[in-house]
Structures are given as structure tokens and as C-alpha cells.
């Protein structure tokens, strides 16, 4: 990476391709949610009204400290819960009103890897992504195999096809999990902390891959992450959450303000701007 400092960076607005001439994919309008243990008890957690948009080919990073509402927001976007108020639209259709099958054909959710109980081959796992297209008992068709094969190729996983899932490295497994999501042929990809168990090389590789998928295959990608610098480097838009509130939405340069980040993450931070116009966050001197 370049080592431009804050001093020699341009002050003009960064050259980030935010206004691509691409269609609106996701529209979140004043969506809110409240979670309570039982119907009668007071809500344990609320997500204040959040509004933002995402277009085709865009990567949006959802940032915030722990318990800020990132996963809750992702649950709403995935249609697993209905917003208390407001609307979430994907390609013009309200997510909570879609039937599960249609929804799973449009939106794919990649969560932190869950432990597999019984041995499974990589291709069997990827084929599971074809579930929303299947008929009764869902025996997979030739087309399903073709799509799963394509999905695996898109993540560079052809060679992994016949391996056992439990014998993959962290990076390989993450790619296979992504391939299962791609096999759903979605237009919107949601990823919940996909870089969590990866080393820095794996993290960069995954985000490069997501960038390429967004650019070439026109996916819209939403990533929940703790990686401020990788988010800045690879995403077009940032949604910053704090204590269940959507604090700011914008390009990395618009969101990465020192005072704001310090307040949200409760740590002394400094923000520099790199030569490519993307901000970079480092730990402040007086930690």
C-alpha cells in the first residue's frame, strides 16, 4: 500500500465513483426495529430509523462498534424480520412482503461460518444455494449443477470441488460459503463479518473478489465489518451505526471524521487521507 500521509493528500473531494450510472438496487427508508425477549416486556434493543440507498455495482460497508445494530440491520435487509416502521425495497419490491422463495432468489445472506456437524463435500455445500429454485424434495437439476459450478468458478474454487468442507483453510471455506450465496443468483449480497477469521492476506483477497464481482457481475454488496481501513479502501458508501442509531451515510471521506469516529468507537483515532483520496484510520498518539 502507498504511504501517503495526511499532509500531501489532496483536499479536493476524493475521486470515488459514487455516482455510477447504474440502477437503484436497495432503498432503505426510515426503517426501524425493536427487539424484546417477550411480547410484553420492554424492548431490549431498538434500531432507530435508518435511511440509505445502494445501487448496482456498489459495495456498501456497515460499520459500528459491537451492539450498535449492525446485525439487526442485516436481519431486516435479509427479510428475516419485519421492520417496525419504514420500508426496505429491493429492485422496487418491499422485502418483508416477498415470499421466501422469491426473496432467496434476489438476496443472499452470508453469515459467519457455522460448524458443520457431518462431513460434506464442497460441491454438495454449494449446491445447497440452489434450494430456492427446487421443486419438492429438491433433487437438483443439470442446470442447478451448472449454476453451482459457475458460482464456484467465480470465487476461484474449481480445484476445491471434491474436497471435504472440514479440510479447507479459513480463506478457502469463506470462498466456498460465498460461492453458495452466488449459486442463489442474487442481485443483492449481504455479508456478516466475512473477514472475521481471515488473516490480512485473506481479507484483502476476499474484498478484492467482492469488488470484482460487483464491478463485473453487477452485484450490490453490503458488508458488515469491523475493518475500518479495508472498508474505506473497497467500499463506495459507508453506513455508520452507533447505539442503534444510523449516525451518518456517505462516502468514506464523508463519514471518516476524526471526532465522529472517536465518539463512536471510544478510542483516540487519527484520520489521514491517502493519495487515492480514501481516508485511513490509525490509532491516535495518546492512547
Amino acid at each position, binding site marked *: 500500500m502507498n504511504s501517503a500521509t495526511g499532509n500531501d493528500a489532496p483536499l479536493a473531494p476524493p475521486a470515488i465513483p459514487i455516482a455510477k450510472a447504474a440502477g437503484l438496487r436497495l432503498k432503505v427508508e426510515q426503517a426501524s426495529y425493536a427487539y424484546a425477549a417477550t411480547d410484553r416486556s420492554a424492548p431490549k434493543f431498538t434500531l432507530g430509523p435508518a435511511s440509505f440507498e445502494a445501487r448496482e455495482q456498489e459495495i456498501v460497508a456497515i460499520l459500528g462498534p459491537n451492539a450498535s445494530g449492525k446485525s439487526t440491520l442485516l436481519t431486516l435487509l435479509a*427479510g*428475516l424480520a419485519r421492520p417496525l416502521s419504514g420500508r426496505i425495497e429491493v429492485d422496487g419490491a418491499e422485502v418483508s412482503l416477498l415470499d421466501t422463495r422469491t426473496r432467496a432468489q434476489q438476496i443472499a445472506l452470508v453469515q459467519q461460518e*457455522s460448524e458443520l*456437524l457431518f462431513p460434506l463435500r464442497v460441491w454438495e455445500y454449494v449446491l445447497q444455494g440452489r434450494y430456492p429454485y427446487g421443486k419438492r424434495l429438491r433433487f437438483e437439476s443439470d442446470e442447478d449443477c451448472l449454476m453451482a459450478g459457475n458460482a464456484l468458478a467465480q470465487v476461484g474454487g474449481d480445484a476445491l470441488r471434491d474436497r471435504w468442507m472440514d479440510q479447507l483453510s479459513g480463506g478457502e471455506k469463506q470462498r466456498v460459503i460465498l460461492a453458495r450465496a452466488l449459486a442463489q443468483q442474487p442481485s443483492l449480497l449481504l455479508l456478516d463479518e466475512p473477514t472475521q477469521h481471515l488473516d490480512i492476506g485473506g481479507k484483502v483477497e476476499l474484498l478484492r473478489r467482492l469488488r470484482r464481482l460487483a464491478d463485473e457481475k453487477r452485484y450490490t454488496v453490503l458488508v458488515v465489518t469491523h475493518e475500518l481501513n479495508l472498508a474505506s479502501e473497497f467500499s463506495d458508501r459507508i453506513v455508520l451505526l452507533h447505539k442503534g442509531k444510523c449516525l451518518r451515510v456517505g462516502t468514506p471521506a464523508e463519514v471518516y471524521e476524526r471526532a465522529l469516529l472517536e465518539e463512536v468507537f471510544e478510542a483516540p483515532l487519527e484520520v489521514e487521507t491517502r493519495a487515492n483520496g480514501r481516508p485511513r484510520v490509525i490509532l491516535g498518539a495518546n492512547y
Partner: protein
Amino acid sequence: MRPLTPSRVLVVCAALFAVLFVAAVISLRLGAYPISVIDIVTTLFKGVIGRWDEIPSEFSSVVFDIRLPRIALGILVGASLSTAGAGFQALLRNPLADPYILGVSSGAALGAIISLVVAPHTPGAIQAAAFAGAAVTIAAVYFLGRRGGKLDSATLLLAGIVMASFLSAIIMFLMTTLSGRDLRGMAFWLMGDLATLPAVDSIWKWMAFLFGVFAIAAGAMYTTASDLNLILTGEQEARHLGVNVHRVKLVVYVAASVLTGLAVSVSGAVGYVGLLVPHVMRMMFGSDYRLLIPTSALGGAILIVLADTLARTSGSPTELPVGAMTALAGAPVFIYLMRRRVR
């Protein structure tokens, strides 16, 4: 990449069915009264096409009244327990789960023992009471195992284990009140035993009823097979992919419990089959539940028929409990397959 197809399921099942048929013929062949394989096959064939008057009466009695009902019962018990085991392993997300883990067998045993205390020597009472005991336990564990109105794997497991040990304590207490003969019967029942057929008018009508219940419960579980594949790789993602996780869990819980109750009420608690067979079938044919459920049913049937044949004949004239034999016959196979996979 070779996905599972219906024809592969049929081919594998047909092969296992052939093995089961061979096991049944071996079991018919062995016993105190000598009868040749040719005689067995002609007797079966004539029986099936209804030419009863051409069958020598001693053959008819040995094959149709003594050995075949016991084999049919073995098939029913083995198939039920293995299917239930495969179901519970998915439901509880635990490879160590077996059909008895949630206390269904303890509930059945308590029902049986109560019938021995209250109404001894009433024909059919022990089976009916055992099934009632299983049903009550199923309901109780269901209500204890819910969290936020939905079945939660961990809560269900804890509720079941506590229920099982509580019921076992009551059983131990009641067993001290039994007389010698009933006590021996109860001990055999707790170990699992196929020797006692109930005194019913028509054994084959009764058998048809039992197999009908099996077909409904196992069929219900099979409808959830592809959903279970997804649930096993992550509940929330399965939900997102369109699986009604709550409904699937409920169907599997009820179906697996009914299958366990069915097996236990006719044979007592035959151990090991429900744990072992699903694992062996996974090692042989993969983890896909669309194949695992039918192969487990057939594999369980094969194991019990062979184990019961050993139990009947190896220690002749005394009979050994079939439960001990299932472990004796199954464990070496299991260890062999496990080591082969590790290599």
C-alpha cells in the same frame, strides 16, 4: 459434481433391500427346527400367492407363526429406531443423539412397569401402557423444551435428559415392588427383547397396523429431508433460503418420537441401533438426508434381523438380549468405517 438423483436413491435402497432379504432368509433358516433354504423360499412363495394347502403344516408353523413375525418385528424396530436416530441427530444438532436421549424410552418403560404393577397378565396392556407413557413424555418434553414459543435444540436436549433421569428414578423405585417373575420380564424389557409377541388374534393385522404407523411417521420425516440438509449447515441461513425451520423441527420431533415410542412399546429399549446405523450410513452413502433417511431405515432393519438371529441361536437353548447383540455386531463395523475415513 454428481448430485443426488431419485434413481440413485432407488438403486441404493434396492441394493439394501436385497441385503435385508438375504438376512431374513438366513434368519428363517437358523433355529431349533431345521429347514432348508429351498423349503423356505417355496413356502414363502406359496404363502404369498395364497396356496396355503400345499405348504406342509410344520413349515407353515415354523415360517409364518414363529420366525417370520419375529423377523418382521425386528425390521419394524430396527427401521424405526434408526430413522428416529437420524432425525434426532439433525434436530438436536448433536452426533451423539440417539432415539432415547429425550426420555421417550424411559416414559415407555414407566408405562410398562405401571401396567405390570396395576394390571399384571392383561394381554396387550404392557404395549398399550408403554406407548401411552411414551406419548405423555413426548408432550411433556416438548413443552419444557420450548424457548420463546419455538423448539430450541439446546433447551430441548436439556429438558429431555433431565426428564429421562427423573423417569428412570421412578422406574428404579417401582421395580423394587415387582415380584421375581415380573422383575425378570422387566429386566428383559429394559434391555430390549423381540421374543415376546403380544397375544393378539391376528398377528399379521397387528403387524400391518404397526407398519402403517411407521410409514406415516417416516414418510412425514422424509418430506423434510432437503430442509434438514440446510438446517444442519446453519439455522438462520436455512431460514433465509426459505426453510420454515420451526415447522421442520416440529415435524421431525413428533415423527422421531412416534417412531421411538412405536419401537419401544413392542420390543423394549433395544440400544445402540439408533445411534450407530445413521453414522454408518453417512460413512457409506454421505450426509444427504434424502438418502440417509431411507438407508438408515433399511440398515437398521438389517442390523436388528442379524443381531436377533445371533441372539436366538448363538447361546441356544438360552436366548441372549438382542440389545447386547446389536452392539456386538455393530461396533466392529462402525470402528472399521471410522478408521477408514480417518485414513
